[in-house]
């Protein structure tokens, strides 16, 4: 048995998934409580959709444990919505109700929540992408699941559509539904989610609240000046460097918490040519995400080098 009862709404323990002899998920763990909105972020191929597919029952061949409180069904919108083109919105909802074996449901109320109640008699093939996404969300809400999964629901939507979808997600959450959402739009994630899971190459690099995520990053400075690749080669030898980001005209440097801007300044004067200014930098989620990934890559490279030595 890989699914059992949990105190938290969802308790995912050490999930691994192997494809063609290689692990694409390498021990993912997290807990979700009532009312949480978890944002899963990571580059393409990091295992986000695989993880969601496991949670949604699309993939059953995995290692690890998923504990659900009261063994509820999870409402899911994964990849792009897949409904029947020749059926109307109402018929598609009815179909999902049949699949979920639900006899007591109100199509109009569901469609009202996602704002497509006027399209109730339209065929699925006649809907815009945004409306299709909304229909997918409405279908995932059938049966009042305490948790829904939305895999990149903002994909292909225009800014107005993204904003509308954010409002819908907040509205659904206010109804007491927990949500797991993946997105490449980090600003959206930071606005909508209270918890973040960062995946990279199938590894969980961070799980916690947004505040914890920001505080997990050490002192960060912005270095202005010539930031050539030669510069970064030298910079990577800074003993208290934890991570850095290469931008067009500047770079962002994360250092060990025991050190300060003065230490960075001194090291640069001693080891690099002059012409660099070190200033404090205000982080946004995108910076934090990229710094954490770079930190992992640097650590991985160091470990590999050490093992070769």
């Amino acid at each position, binding site marked *: 048995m890989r699914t059992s009862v949990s105190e938290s709404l969802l308790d995912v323990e050490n999930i691994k998934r192997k494809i063609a002899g290689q692990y694409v998920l390498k021990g993912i763990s997290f807990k979700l409580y009532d009312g949480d909105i978890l944002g899963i972020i990571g580059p393409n191929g990091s295992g986000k959709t695989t993880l969601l597919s496991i949670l949604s*029952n699309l993939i059953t061949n995995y290692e690890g444990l998923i504990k659900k409180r009261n063994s509820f069904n999870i409402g*899911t919108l994964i*990849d792009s919505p*897949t409904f029947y083109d020749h059926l109307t919105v109402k018929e598609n909802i009815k*179909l999902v109700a*049949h*699949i979920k*074996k639900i006899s007591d449901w109100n199509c109009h109320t569901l469609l009202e929540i996602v704002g497509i109640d006027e399209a109730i008699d339209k065929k699925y093939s006649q809907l815009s992408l945004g409306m299709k996404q909304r229909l997918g969300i409405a279908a995932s809400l059938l049966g009042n699941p305490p948790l829904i999964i939305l895999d990149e629901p903002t994909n292909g939507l225009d800014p107005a559509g993204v904003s509308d979808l954010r409002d819908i997600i907040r509205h659904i959450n206010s109804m007491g539904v927990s949500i797991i959402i993946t997105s490449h739009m980090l600003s959206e994630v930071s606005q909508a989610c209270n918890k973040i899971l960062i995946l990279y190459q199938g590894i969980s690099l961070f799980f916690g609240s947004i505040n914890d995520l920001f505080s997990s990053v050490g002192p960060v400075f912005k270095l202005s000046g010539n930031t050539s690749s030669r510069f970064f080669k030298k910079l990577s030898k800074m003993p208290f460097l934890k991570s850095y980001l290469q931008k067009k005209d500047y770079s962002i440097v994360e250092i060990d918490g025991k050190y300060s801007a003065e230490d960075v300044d001194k090291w640069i004067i001693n080891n690099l040519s002059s012409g660099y200014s070190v200033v404090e930098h205000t982080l946004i989620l995108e910076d934090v995400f990229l710094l954490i990934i770079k930190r992992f890559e640097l650590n991985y490279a160091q470990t590999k080098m050490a093992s070769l030595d």
Partner: protein
Amino acid sequence: MRKLRWLLWTEWLILSKSVVCVIFAITWLTCAFGLPFIIYLQRNDPNNRFKTLLEEAFTFPTVFNTIGVLELLPAQILSLFIIYIVCQDLEHKTYRLRLINGSNRIDLFLSKFIVIIVLSFLITLNAFLNSLIFGYLEMSSSFFSIRFKDVVLFIVLAIQSAGFMLYAMLFGLFFKKAGLAIMLFLVWFGAVERVIAQTINFNYPFQLYPLGSCLPGKAIEDRTILDIFRPILININSYESVKWFSAFFWIILSIYLCNFLFKKFE
């Protein structure tokens, strides 16, 4: 039973609104009545070399046997329909809608299998009704007589048409694309399986049965497949057992392979 009812309603909702479903239904009904009707019209043709056979073919109770065998050919239209609906789910990934909403792969297989059962029931019912129609039209023999072996013949027809449709479902699952699967099914059904059955030098009856008669094309040619229930009813001998075994072997193998292929599409 409750689960089967939900699965049946789900399939009904999808298929009842489909234009393709209506086209297949009309085509099948036309052929299912048209084919025996054309042959019925030829029964008094003096130039027909099967005249002697046809004179008796539409009288009670022989008409059950005649129509039972003839209905196997239009049943192939429904085999193509099964390929179509299986491939549509795979091509448009609509099967995922079921998986993410709590169904498992066995349910997926079951839902299509239920369609097959319903269709094979409809084929059998249609064959029975056609037999009555043509029997009444002929009225040359005793009025409506049916023997136990004719009832068995209809049971065999139902199992056989379900077997053919399962076999078609395998094509759909394997090739995924409806056009490709239907084309290859027709090529196989029309030519390849007969070539295999006639080329491989097995001893009789293995040459006919394991490779040929239980597959659609050869089965229509060889109506003795309809006797597969005889060993149960009369006496078991090795020759009949081979036929009996091979028919069920293909059906069970088809069920297993369909289920296996569904599991592969995760």
